[in-house]
C-alpha cells in the first residue's frame, strides 16, 4: 500500500514538473510564423489603461504579430529602421506591414502609443495612408473589423465583423484601435456611401461575425472612424438584441426610435433675466410607468455658477418645500423616509455642474414633480450676454485607478464603471420620451437689439423694446445639447454696472467691470501661442473637426514675430516640434499639415496635455497664451485644476469648449485659474467667427494689476479675491459684501503696457432700480466656489466645514449640503420598490460607441 502511494506521488510530481516545464517553455518559445491557423494570446490596453489578455487568430504561415517573441535588441533595431523623423521633428514611418512593427513604434515613441505617424503603407497593391495612432487592436465590441490581417504580412480592410470588435471589449470605448484611417480614395467612397453596412476591402466580402448584424451606427460613421483591428475571438457572444455589449445593436429604420418607458417625463425651464442676473425655475416631472413602486434616480447638469436655493417637491396639489441639510444627514433622512415608505426626494451635488435627483416611493401610475430654483450671473462675451441652460451631462473619461469620477455607462449597466457617480446613456436608436420646454423672459433695462440661439430652434416675442420672451420650439424638445441664448443690448459703450441687495445680514453687491474702451486701439506684444487639442474619442467626428477648423484659422492669423506650437493629447501627449516654431509660411504649412493628421480616439488623459503645454520652455520675450480646445469630458477635474494652478507660471490660459454639451465648469475654472478667458464653439457655430473674436481680444493688451478704491463703500469678502486681467470684450464680475450708503465713486487703476490707467465709476448705493434679491445667494455661491477651489490644493484644513457653514446659512446647495423633502403625511404600501436610473441621450455630436462603457 505504502509503495503504491509512493509511486503515485512520484508520478504526480513528475507530471507536475513536466506540465510546468511545458508551460514555461510555451512562454519563451519563439513563434515568428504560425504553422497552422491558431490563436495567439496578446496583451492590449483598454481605454482605462488596463492591460487585458485577449486572443487573436493567426492564419497559417502568418506572422503572429506578437512582439513578445522579439528580443529587446531586435525590437529597438526594428523600431529604429521603421521610425524616422523629418527635418522639422515630425516622426513618420513607411512600409509598415507587420502588426508587430506598429508595436515597436509605439514602444519607441510613446508610453501608450498613438503618436502621430505619417507615411504610406503599401498593402496588397493598394496605398493606405497611416494617419495617426498606433495601437493595432482593441476598440469597439460589435463594431466590426475595418481591417483584417491577411496572414501574409499585409492588412486588408473588410467589413461586417459585427460583434468581433477588435479585442472584443464589448464596446467598452474607443479602445486603442486608435485611428488608422485608410487612404483618401477609400475614405471618399465611405463618405459618399455611408448607408452601406460596414466597409469592404479588396477581395473580401463583408460577412457578419458572431456578434450578429453590424451595428446601425457604423452606417453613419464618418471617415475618421474606421478602425484597424485584429480579428479577435474573445467571447463576446450575442445573446439577444437587447443585451448591451453583445455587438448586436438594434437596427431600426431612421425615424423609428425605440421608446423606453422611464420615470422622467418632462423638464420645464422658466428663466427670468433682469440685468445680468437670471432667476431660473426647473421643474422635473417624474411618473411611474411600471406596475410596482419605484425610486427614480436622475443625474443632470445645471450651470456651474448656479446658486440653488429652493427645492420643492410637488405631490398632486400639495407642495412641500425641501430643507437644506448637511449632506450626509440629508442622505440619512432620505433613506429612512424611503425605507419607511414615505414619498421623499433628495438633491445632491456631484460636481458644481452635475447633480443627482432621487425621488422615492413613486407609486404605479402616480407622479411627483420636483421644482428647483437658482440664480446665476450671465456671461458677457464680446458684446453679447449669454444665458446657458445645459441639458445633458456629457460622458466623462476617468483615468485608471480613479474612482471619484463620473462614469458613463450604458442603460441598465449600473455599477460597471466603478465610479462614485454614474450617468446611464441611451443606446443609439433609443428614445426615453423625456422632453423639455424652456421659456426665458428678458428684461434688459435697455433696448434689446438682437437675440439668437444657434443650437436650438426658438420663437421670440418682444412685449417692449427692452423686454423679450424667448421660447424653445416644441419641435426641438430633445434635451441632448446645451441651450445657449445670446442677446445684445443697445449702446456700444457699456458702463460698468453695480447691483446691490441689503437684508438683515448686511449689504451685498455685484459689479460687472468693463475694460476701458481705449484698449482696443493699442497693439499687443509678440506672442508665443500654444494650441492644445483634445484628440480623445469623445472629440471624434464633428467636435474635433470644429476644433481643427479653429486652429487652422488661428494659425493663419499669427503674426511674423510670433511663435507657435501644437500639442495633441488623448492617452498621451505629443507635439509638432521640440521647441516653439517661428511663424513662417513654411512652418504654418507644416502646422496645418499636422493639424490635418490629428484624429479623435483613445482616453482623455488631460493631465498629459496640461503638462506638455505648461511645462513647455517659455520664451520670456513673448506673451504666452495656451489655448485648450476640448469638450472637457473628464471625471478628475480637481486633479487637472490642481495641475493648472501648480504649473501656470507666466502663461495665460484660454479655454475653448468644443461641442454641444461641454463641461463648462472645467473650462471656466481653467480659464479663471489661467488668468485668461473661456469661449465656446457649438457644433452649429462658426469656428472661424469664434477665433476671430478671440484674436480680436488678444490682439490688444490687457489691463493688468488691477486695483480698486471703493470710495464710500466699505467692501469685504470680495470674490474673486484677486481681480483678473481685463481683456477687450471681456468684463469681469466681482461680488462682495459692503457697508455704506448714498452716492460715491469707485476708482479702478490698472497697467497697460507699462503705463497706468484709471477708470472712475459713479454709483448710487440707494438706487432701488439697481437692486436684486438674488445677490446675497450669488455672493454666497461665489464664496463657496472660492473655498472649494482652495480645498482642491489644501486638503488638510477645515475648508469643507467652512463651505458647509456658508451653504447652510444661506440655504444653498454645495458639495457638502443637500436638499431633502419628505411627505410624512402618508406611507405608501410595501417597501421602497425598484430603483430606476433615468438614462439620457449622449450629447449631440458625441458618439455613444466611443464614450460609453457597455
Amino acid at each position: 500500500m505504502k509503495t503504491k502511494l509512493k509511486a503515485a506521488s512520484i508520478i504526480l510530481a513528475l507530471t507536475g514538473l513536466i506540465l510546468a516545464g511545458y508551460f514555461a517553455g510555451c512562454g519563451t518559445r519563439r513563434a515568428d510564423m504560425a504553422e497552422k491557423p491558431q490563436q495567439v494570446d496578446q496583451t492590449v490596453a483598454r481605454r482605462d489603461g488596463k492591460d487585458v489578455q485577449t486572443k487573436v487568430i493567426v492564419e497559417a504561415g502568418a506572422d503572429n504579430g506578437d512582439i513578445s517573441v522579439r528580443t529587446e535588441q531586435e525590437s529597438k533595431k526594428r523600431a529604429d529602421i521603421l521610425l524616422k523623423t523629418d527635418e522639422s521633428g515630425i516622426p513618420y514611418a513607411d512600409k509598415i506591414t507587420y502588426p508587430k512593427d506598429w508595436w515597436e513604434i509605439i514602444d519607441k515613441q510613446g508610453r501608450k502609443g498613438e503618436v502621430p505617424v505619417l507615411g504610406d503603407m503599401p498593402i496588397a497593391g493598394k496605398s493606405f495612408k497611416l494617419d495617426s495612432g498606433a495601437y493595432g487592436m482593441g476598440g469597439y465590441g460589435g463594431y466590426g473589423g475595418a481591417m483584417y490581417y491577411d496572414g501574409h504580412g499585409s492588412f486588408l480592410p473588410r467589413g461586417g465583423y459585427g460583434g468581433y470588435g477588435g479585442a472584443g471589449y464589448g464596446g467598452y470605448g474607443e479602445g486603442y484601435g486608435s485611428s488608422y484611417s485608410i487612404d483618401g480614395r477609400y475614405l471618399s467612397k465611405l463618405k459618399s456611401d455611408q448607408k452601406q453596412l460596414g466597409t469592404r476591402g479588396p477581395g473580401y466580402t463583408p460577412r457578419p461575425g458572431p456578434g450578429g448584424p453590424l451595428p446601425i451606427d457604423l452606417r453613419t460613421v464618418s471617415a475618421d472612424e474606421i478602425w484597424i483591428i485584429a480579428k479577435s475571438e474573445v467571447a463576446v457572444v450575442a445573446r439577444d438584441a437587447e443585451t448591451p455589449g453583445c455587438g448586436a445593436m438594434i437596427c431600426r429604420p431612421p425615424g423609428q426610435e425605440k421608446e423606453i418607458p422611464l420615470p422622467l417625463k418632462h423638464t420645464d425651464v422658466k428663466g427670468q433675466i433682469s440685468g445680468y442676473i437670471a432667476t431660473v425655475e426647473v421643474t422635473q416631472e417624474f411618473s411611474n410607468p411600471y406596475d410596482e413602486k419605484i425610486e427614480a434616480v436622475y443625474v443632470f447638469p445645471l450651470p456651474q455658477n448656479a446658486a440653488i436655493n429652493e427645492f420643492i417637491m410637488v405631490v398632486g396639489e400639495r407642495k412641500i418645500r425641501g430643507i437644506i441639510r448637511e449632506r450626509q444627514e440629508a442622505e440619512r433622512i432620505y433613506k429612512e423616509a424611503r425605507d419607511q415608505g414615505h414619498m421623499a426626494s433628495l438633491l445632491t451635488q456631484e460636481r458644481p455642474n452635475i447633480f443627482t435627483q432621487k425621488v422615492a416611493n413613486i407609486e404605479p401610475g402616480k407622479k411627483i414633480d420636483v421644482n428647483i430654483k437658482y440664480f446665476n450671473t450671465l456671461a458677457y462675451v464680446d458684446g453679447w450676454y449669454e444665458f446657458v441652460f445645459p441639458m445633458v451631462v456629457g460622458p466623462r473619461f476617468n483615468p485608471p485607478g480613479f474612482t471619484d469620477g463620473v462614469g458613463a455607462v450604458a442603460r441598465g449597466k449600473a455599477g460597471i464603471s466603478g465610479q462614485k457617480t454614474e450617468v446611464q446613456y441611451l443606446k443609439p436608436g433609443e428614445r426615453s420620451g423625456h422632453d423639455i420646454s424652456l421659456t426665458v423672459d428678458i428684461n434688459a433695462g435697455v433696448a434689446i437689439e438682437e437675440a439668437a440661439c444657434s443650437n436650438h430652434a426658438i420663437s421670440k416675442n418682444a412685449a417692449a423694446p427692452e423686454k423679450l420672451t424667448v421660447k424653445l420650439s416644441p419641435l426641438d424638445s430633445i434635451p441632448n445639447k446645451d441651450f445657449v441664448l445670446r442677446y445684445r443690448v443697445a449702446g456700444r459703450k457699456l458702463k460698468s454696472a453695480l447691483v446691490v441687495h441689503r437684508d438683515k445680514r448686511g449689504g451685498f453687491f455685484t459689479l460687472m467691470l468693463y475694460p476701458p474702451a481705449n484698449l482696443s486701439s493699442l497693439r499687443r506684444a509678440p506672442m508665443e501661442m500654444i494650441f492644445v487639442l483634445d484628440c480623445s474619442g469623445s472629440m471624434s467626428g464633428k467636435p474635433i473637426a470644429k476644433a481643427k477648423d479653429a486652429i487652422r484659422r488661428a494659425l493663419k492669423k499669427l503674426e511674423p514675430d510670433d511663435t507657435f506650437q501644437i500639442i495633441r493629447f488623448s492617452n498621451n501627449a505629443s507635439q509638432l516640434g521640440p521647441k516653439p516654431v517661428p511663424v513662417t509660411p513654411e512652418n504654418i504649412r507644416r502646422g496645418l499639415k499636422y493639424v490635418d493628421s490629428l484624429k479623435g480616439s483613445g482616453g482623455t488623459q488631460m493631465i498629459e496635455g496640461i503638462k506638455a503645454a505648461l511645462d513647455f520652455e517659455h520664451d520670456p520675450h513673448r506673451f504666452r497664451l495656451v489655448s485648450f480646445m476640448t469638450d472637457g469630458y473628464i471625471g478628475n477635474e480637481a486633479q487637472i485644476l490642481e495641475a493648472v494652478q501648480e504649473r501656470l507660471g507666466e502663461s495665460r490660459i484660454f479655454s475653448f469648449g468644443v461641442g454641444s454639451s461641454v463641461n463648462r465648469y472645467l473650462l471656466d475654472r481653467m480659464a479663471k485659474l489661467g488668468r485668461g478667458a473661456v469661449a465656446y464653439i457649438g457644433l452649429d457655430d462658426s469656428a472661424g467667427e469664434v477665433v476671430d473674436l478671440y484674436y480680436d481680444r488678444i490682439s490688444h493688451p490687457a489691463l493688468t494689476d488691477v486695483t480698486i478704491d471703493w470710495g464710500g463703500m466699505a467692501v469685504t469678502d470680495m470674490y474673486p479675491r484677486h481681480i483678473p486681467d481685463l481683456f477687450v470684450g471681456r468684463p469681469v464680475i466681482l461680488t462682495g459684501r459692503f457697508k455704506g450708503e448714498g452716492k460715491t465713486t469707485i476708482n479702478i487703476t490698472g497697467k497697460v503696457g507699462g503705463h497706468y490707467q484709471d477708470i472712475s465709476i459713479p454709483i448710487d448705493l440707494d438706487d432701488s432700480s439697481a437692486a436684486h434679491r438674488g445677490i446675497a445667494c450669488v455672493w454666497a455661491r461665489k464664496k463657496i466656489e472660492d473655498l472649494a477651489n482652495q480645498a482642491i490644493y489644501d486638503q488638510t484644513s477645515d475648508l469643507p466645514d467652512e463651505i458647509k457653514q456658508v451653504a447652510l446659512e444661506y440655504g444653498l446647495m454645495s458639495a457638502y449640503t443637500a436638499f431633502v423633502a419628505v411627505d410624512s403625511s402618508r406611507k405608501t404600501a410595501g417597501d421602497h420598490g425598484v430603483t430606476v436610473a433615468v438614462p439620457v441621450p449622449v450629447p449631440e455630436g458625441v458618439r455613444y460607441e466611443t464614450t460609453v462603457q457597455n
Partner: protein
Amino acid sequence: MKKTALIIAASMCVMVPVLARQPYPEYPTAQPKVRFAPLHIYVDSGERALGAFQFELKAFGGQIKIVGVEGGEHAAFKEPGYYDPAALANDRIIIAAFNTANELPSGRTRIATIHLQITGRVEPEYGLELTVAADADGQEIPAEITFETGEQK
C-alpha cells in the same frame, strides 16, 4: 474505547462548524427609533384677513428635525412658506410667508404643515410662538396659533 473516541471525534467534526454558524444572540440596539410625522399649523386671525405670518416651532422632550414645509389650505398660502436657513443652522425652526393678494383667509385656517423627523420613542411636546401676523398692508393683527397632529388634513 476506540469506537467511542471515533464517535466523539466525528461528532465534534459535525458540531463545531454547525455551532460556528450560529448567530450571536441579538439584543435591541441603542439606536433611537426614527419616524416621520406631520404637524398642521393653524392661525386664527378672527375677522381680519391674514396677509403674512411668522412663527417659531420648538419641541420639548423629544428630538425633531424639519424635513419639509408644506403650503396651507387657502389659495393665498398654497405655496409653502419659507424657513430661515440661518436659524435652522442654529437648530431653530422659523417659518414665514406673506401674500398681498385680494383674496386672503380670515378666521381659523391651516397656514402650513411641517413635516418632521422624530427621533426617540417619546412623543415630543411642541411649542409654537407666533412671532407676527399681519394683514395685506403689513399692519400687525392679533391672531392665535395652534397645531394638530395626525395624517393628511
